[in-house]
């Protein structure tokens, strides 16, 4: 019953700490996590998702070039034949921007959910559970909240 998520940092962004924490959180929540690491191209995301039959693709971006890096991302997924829930999160704009604008921009690009960098990992886990219509397995709860 465990579901696979593909995780990575897009573009030439090397901020790795966030996805390291996310990997651990999704693992602890019972997902199978394929962590592609930093500086992952659109194609690498698509191929990994295809190969592992991933339910979700989680894109991280911190360095401020997310918008450029994600142009055509969903077209690439589609072209590869991937139909997964897509999330993006991190620090998505250069400078001191308003997050609601940012969210709109990325939803328009096709992401199912957009997270800011204040996101708690539990929040993201809960959202994905909901989107994939999973229920929290009783036994895992203490692991997550501890």
């Amino acid at each position, binding site marked *: 019953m465990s579901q696979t998520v593909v995780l990575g*940092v897009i573009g030439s962004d090397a901020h790795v*700490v966030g996805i390291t924490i996310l990997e651990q959180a999704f693992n602890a929540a019972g997902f199978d996590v394929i962590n592609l690491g930093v500086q992952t191209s659109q194609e690498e995301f698509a191929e990994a998702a295809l190969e592992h039959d991933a339910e979700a693709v989680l894109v991280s971006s911190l360095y*401020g070039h997310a918008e450029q890096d994600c142009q055509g991302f969903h077209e690439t997924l589609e072209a590869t034949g991937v139909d997964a829930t897509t999330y993006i999160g991190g*620090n998505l704009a250069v400078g001191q921007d308003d997050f609601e604008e940012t969210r709109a921009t990325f939803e328009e690009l096709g992401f199912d959910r957009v997270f800011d*960098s204040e996101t708690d990992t539990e929040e993201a886990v809960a959202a994905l559970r909901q989107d994939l219509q999973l229920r929290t397995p009783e036994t895992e709860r203490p692991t997550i909240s*501890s």
Partner: protein
Amino acid sequence: MIRDERIPSEELQRIDEQIRSNWSTGEAVDFEDAIEYHESLPERKRFADVLESADSPLLQPRAGVPQLDDQVELLEYLHSEGKADLLPTTIDSYTRDNEYGKAQEGLEKARETGEDTLNGFPAVNHGVEGCRELIDAIDAPIEVRHGTPDARLLAAITFAGGFQSFEGGPISYNIPYTKRHGLEETIEKWQFVDRLAGAYTERGVRINREPFGPLTGTLVPPSIAIAIMLVEGKLAATQGVRSVTLGYGQVGNIVQDVAALNALKKLGNEYLPDEVVVTTVFHEWMGGFPPDEARANGVISLGGMTASIAQPDKVITKSPQEFQGVPTKEANSAGLRTTRQVIDMAIEQQIDIDGIEEEQDLIERETRCLMDTIFDHGDGDVVQGTIKAFDSGALDVPFAPSDSAAGAVLPARDDDGRVRIFEWADLEMDDDIKEIHKARLTQRADTEGRDQSFRMVADDVDAISDGKLIGRPQGGV
């Protein structure tokens, strides 16, 4: 096989010509003309001299915008309103990837739309003339700060453009900044950068080189950072660099930070050749910041406090907007002035804290273990030793995104908030030192009534942004 040897001058010339052909602006670089330009610069723009002769820590922010005029304005503002002593020019990400074409597009789009479509100043695209306009306009020394694995063209152009300080190094701008560049490759490329700086130095233009001490910015144990600084300092010295600024990023425990800066200075002078002038730079907290400017000011001030005690030669300041994104110039200046106020109020006070010598001693012993293993791995050659030690995991950096480092070592704070090593993986270290770390971490685990685990590491990663130093479990378990 690449070794720690000076690049012969013919080879220097050959590479120089080759890399200058990588982008149109490379042509304009002329060494003799560059020397002349540097000689024409007034004393107050000579980076190494200003830094080395200062009698209290100099402050420097980070800042870079795509357009020249904007960069001039930004730096003038940071100089006059922020009272920065030294100025930066932070380079954009495309340039760091050697994607000068994309940087050009971004620059042109910036010129058309007035928006900052790049996250830094594309110095290669601005070329020698553009750089000199910047140097001419600003009445203080300016350093190039970037994060570029292959910074050869950037160095050629910015040195000729009048910059006298250049951040980075083959490990420190590889391991934290890129996934796929091999260490052998970046060492070779940085040997050229250092050799070029050395060529200027020989002609009396001392280009200051600054290895990037904070590495991944996230709970890096001091001895790992220091060992890498020593290696990069040695490599630079071999190529003829004579002004080296070794870096260190604040971990937030005052005793450990002061001890680390002391150790860095001491070991720097010990491991580097006598003819090199060694200075130190302290980076205010480089990990995740609180999502609140008021609390960020507290983090910044703790950095200022530490700097006032350790008295490094330079402090790289953070802004209260660090969490959010690239700071406004006002926020950047605010970070400078907050730091200045704390340092100036504290620096004349005699503040001798117990336990600094002991911690310094531990850091030095750890660093020596790492340096010894590097020399051993390379049979005395530091280049080969570094490559092989990273390969075997005997040398490692926590949270390293690079394929060149195992990234298997994991840090965690002890009960006093000092960064210790929780997972050693293959990191080389004497057993008695490992025992010390273990005892400290056990003490913390006992205090918290929980086992040591990755959860503890993750809590520590978030702790400062959550308002604490140590990631204690919240509420019940």
